[in-house]
């Protein structure tokens, strides 16, 4: 037997159970996260309109730049104030 050295990070990611899906959006708050790509605002404006029509409370968020991860504070703010989030990739 020959042995080689592992070039990877040897990570064993923990298994995560997805959060339970919302059964409906009544009296729920939905966050709309614009990752700051061109035309993301157009897409999210339309989503917001449709959600308002259903009586859903909408909160808007945006990343400083689409090229970097969302700052932790932003992720915490969304998690702490919304029941669901829609993230807009656009171009």
């Amino acid at each position, binding site marked *: 037997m020959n042995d*080689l050295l592992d070039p990877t990070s*040897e990570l064993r990611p923990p298994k995560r159970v997805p959060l339970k899906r919302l059964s409906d959006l009544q009296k729920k708050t939905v966050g709309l996260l614009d990752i700051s790509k061109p035309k993301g605002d157009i897409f999210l404006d339309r989503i917001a309109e449709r959600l308002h029509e259903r009586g859903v409370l909408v909160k808007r968020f945006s990343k400083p730049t689409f090229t970097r991860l969302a700052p932790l504070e932003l992720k915490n703010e969304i998690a702490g104030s919304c029941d669901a989030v829609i993230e807009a990739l656009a171009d």
Partner: protein
Amino acid sequence: MNLLVFLKQSCETCKLVAPVLKNFLEEESAEILCQDSSSFFHGLAVRQDIGLRRSWESKIETVPTIIRFDKDGKESARIEGWDSEEWADFLQIEIPETMLRYKPGCGSDTLVPGTYEKLAAKYGGEEIKSRRILVGEQEDEIEACYSRGWSDGLPVVPPTRERVMRMLSGTSRCSHDIVGVVPPNLVECSVEKIAINAVLAGCLPQYMPVVIASVEAALQDEFCMHGLLATTYFSGPLVIVNGPIAREIGMNSGGNVLGQGNRANSTIGRALQLVIRNVGGGKPQEVDRSAFGTPGKIGFCFAEDEAGSCWQSLALERGIEPGCSSVTLFAADGVQAIVDQKSRDPESLSRTFAAGLKSVGHPKLALASDAILVVSPEHERVFRLAGWTKDDLKKRLKDLLTISGDELVEGAGGISEGLPVRFKSKKIPKFREGGLLIVRAGGKAGMFSAIIAGWGASGKVGSAPVTRKIT
């Protein structure tokens, strides 16, 4: 006196000193180890250094070597080879005047090619932390690397323990040092993991300082490696090497500089990309969402031709002291040719360069991509003969590439793509401040230069070039 002596039967100098040692041992004591035999000289009690373990532990480079230890067992002095006055002083003995005055020793068996890394793997002081992957005897090692997902598509060099130890000998850094956090999985990367991936890439140990500096630079926040990996754009990391190390490791800065054929050029950038793939977990069709990619994403690295240039090097421009080596990381697309075989004055050639540079990304987009202009020796000569510095060229290009907004806005020229209409009455520079880099490289013949366009997200929005000194 607490002494340890290393000899070798096949060494003529060791044979020369054997009678001296025998006389010395009639009244004193010493432990004598022979690297290649257990019977050395009649009447001299020697033991064989089995497996060269003691020689390795004592870092023996030459035989004969005598090491003296203090009362606490710590080494206090050592002598190598034969110098009669030195031996007389070291052992406090008299040497017959008839003896040869001086004779250099022979190389230790620990330094026989191929032996050092085997001993390092067997007795190495630094513990290898990476997981061992057992490969069956019937299994092809290169295929085993493919099947485990470690390859970028080309064959890799199987990272055996011996090869990794040899690679680590190319750096003075501790193998457990953490160099940075690698995206997209945001995991810490040690020097050891870099060495394993440098083996995969086909690097030589002497490339390690360049590879480590490249990884460090790529992991700086301003380089934005995560976004560069994840973008749908073409780009990948390019490494430009400056300073004496480029020559020392045989890098190419001349003919076919951006092409194949040079081991250092071909493997250093590849090692960086394999670190991103294997340590960070960044793979095409996964977090790497590039629509096209570019051939340079296998690995893109070259050296600037500083020796032949009358211009200040990229490294000096970016704050590296003269005589030091450095890497500059750039988020790069492929190479676009600039042909100009007729311009013999700098104004004309500047206009050619500007015309080519205007098309980076899209002729109607500005302040988006950075770019590198690689100026060939024959094109640089045009500026040199006219007394233009690199700054003169940059200033002229800035003028030529400051464009009226009405040419750039959406719809202008019948093209929907373009800047928002609010820029219509403004003058817009094609590149952000500091976003156009110029280097000199390439073959001596050919009135061509090259543009290496950058990722469409530059500066604070995306990636800025990062320069790091190689230590």
